[in-house]
């Protein structure tokens, strides 16, 4: 997070993490497509080869006129391929919130696990733990054959802390919901740490509603937040300390 007091502007860094080809870039493309003109800048894709991310993608989203504070979201993806470990570590540094994009296909389960361990290890290198990090998990590619069943995911999600979303990023399904869930968690964590709502007279609910609106989802926020299975969206504040 970067706070520019002079211009009353807050920049939040969100990172989309996950195994190779799980649909991180597709999520950003879907957000970019859904965003109202003016809310989103150009989607920057760095050095791709055969549609594979080499460094990262970056989507800037800006939401102004909210209370007295403008909020800029910088949404990054990491390169999923195993060999880009050092790039992932660089990109994830300073993240305020993380969306873990998992591949729903049963055959990809092992890759999801490895990537998640890699995330944990990279956070550790920056002196962070998964517990401290606002995190949502998205099971993408729900439209593919041989995916893990809804019941299986719901069952596992009910045992975990992180809100879990089901998505088909290629069709934009579940993409905005995942983003709103992540933003909700991230804002709560940042507010707990920096007391932003009070300092800037900021209304997080109105802010989330504005973001959802600008991303083309006019549903009421509680309804959007309910799109997740399992996890604990209401446990907003990470443990003190």
């Amino acid at each position, binding site marked *: 997070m970067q706070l520019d007091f002079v211009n009353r502007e807050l*920049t939040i860094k969100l990172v989309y993490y996950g195994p190779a080809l799980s649909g991180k870039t597709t999520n950003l493309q879907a957000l970019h497509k859904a965003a109202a003109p003016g809310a989103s*800048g*150009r989607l*920057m894709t760095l*050095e791709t080869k055969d549609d594979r991310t080499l460094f990262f993608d*970056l989507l*800037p989203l800006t939401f102004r006129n909210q209370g007295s504070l403008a909020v800029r979201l*910088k949404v990054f993806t990491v390169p999923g391929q195993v060999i880009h470990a050092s*790039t992932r570590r660089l*990109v994830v540094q300073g993240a305020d919130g993380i969306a873990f994009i998992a591949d729903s296909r049963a055959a990809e389960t092992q890759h999801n696990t490895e990537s998640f361990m890699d995330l944990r290890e990279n956070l550790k290198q920056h002196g962070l733990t998964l517990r401290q990090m606002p995190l949502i998990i998205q099971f993408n590619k729900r439209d593919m054959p041989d995916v893990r069943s809804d019941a299986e995911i719901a069952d596992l999600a009910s045992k975990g802390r992180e809100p879990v979303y089901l998505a088909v990023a290629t069709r934009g399904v579940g993409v905005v919901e995942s983003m709103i869930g992540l933003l909700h968690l991230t804002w709560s964590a940042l507010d707990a740490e920096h007391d932003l709502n009070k300092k800037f007279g900021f209304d997080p609910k109105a802010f989330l509603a504005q973001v959802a609106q600008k991303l083309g989802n006019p549903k009421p926020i509680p309804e959007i937040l309910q799109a997740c299975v399992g996890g604990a969206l209401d446990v907003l504040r990470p443990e003190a300390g």
Partner: protein
Amino acid sequence: MLPPAAAKTFDELTLGHGVSLEDLIDRDALGEMVKSFYDLFGVPLRIFSEEGKLLGDAADQIPLYTFLNTVKAGRNVLAEVASKVKNLALGEDGMASYPCATGEHYRVAAIQYDGKRIGRMILGPFVTPAQVETPAALLALDPALDAARLHELFRAMPRAEDDSVVKLSRHLGRTLDLLLFSGHRALLTSNMHLASVRESFRELSDKNDKLQTAFDRLKELDRLKSNFLATVSHELRTPLTSIIGYSEMLVEGLAGEMTGEQREFVQTIRDKGEQLLQLIKGLLDLSKLESGTMSLRKSQTEILGLLRDVSQTMAPTARKKEVELQVDVENGLPLIWADAERLRQVFLNLTENAIKFTPAQGKVTLSARLTAIDAARPEDAGGVVILSARRTAIEFRVADTGIGIPESERGRVFDAFYQVDSSSTREVGGTGLGLSIVRRLIDGHDGTVRIIDNTPKGAVFIVTIPVRRATIG
């Protein structure tokens, strides 16, 4: 020269607080673009960074301004205009217009990137086409200025409609945005590339350091182990020598006659003591071999005699186990350069092992024949043409018809204390020291040892030792 952004962090470059116009765009290229813009539309154009640094300028000297500069009042007016325009406060839309008292106009527009103002463009001076009359303020500036000349120069001022200039500035803004985006992308790519390489290097260096530390520690432990073995074997041997010596004296009746049973007991003590002594000697050998303090006393050694001696020594053991022991040595073998005593130890050990693992009615064969080996070692396999000088060697084989050694174990049986069957219920005893000593002794003779299957069953240990000492050059 590196752009100023080269030293900026990833966060500064991506979170948008550290990127400046100069970081993202090449100054020369910007100058060319501004010039081409001026050539096309005829409206003077200058581009400043957010800090007020001039980055691009395309305006021929305006003849009217040159003329005004000749008088003090004119100079003052122009200086005031320049300063006001440069610091003009821009509206919400990032635009502002400045009409000069002397009739010409300026249009100022913010250069924005990623929602932030990072510079401004100044278009002008220009005069609207409708403005035909020379403004009174211009004519009244200084009586010294020739009015006819002023009329003429004012008519020659660059002409444009204000809303056209607004459109021009928007178009220029969009063009610049594209250039800035590409510049930002290229900057991030090169920056990320460097950072990734640096990060990978750091990671590898860390791992190397850890490996080196672990390696050093292992080496130290290995040295301690060898020292420990040497010390312990030595310390064990001393009292054991007394035990054996005194039991021998008892058996020989030096302390008085013993009953048959007493003699038998003492004999057992002596035998077991002897066995223990051999074991300790083995340990001592191993530690000497490992620490490199064992010296081999090599001389010209005769092979047939050596193997016959081994066979004779092992004959009683073989007879007891009802295993046939046979020696088969090719005629006319040359002498080899070896430590006869150590070589004898090698074959005693291998033969003893072979008998141990061969069931009754089995057969153990000791053989030797002449062969040749490549002088080049496998590790310097290059230059075979040059290095393929062959060395004459003797190939010894100790073949048995026993239980054999599985392929997967063959590399490990030469490790100290290794047992193929390490279960406590194994049928055949041993410390696992023998073969590790064998291998080190063979190494000491510049030789090799390997294991192959015997048909139909059993194992063959093949020891190859060069006939002559290795010569260098």
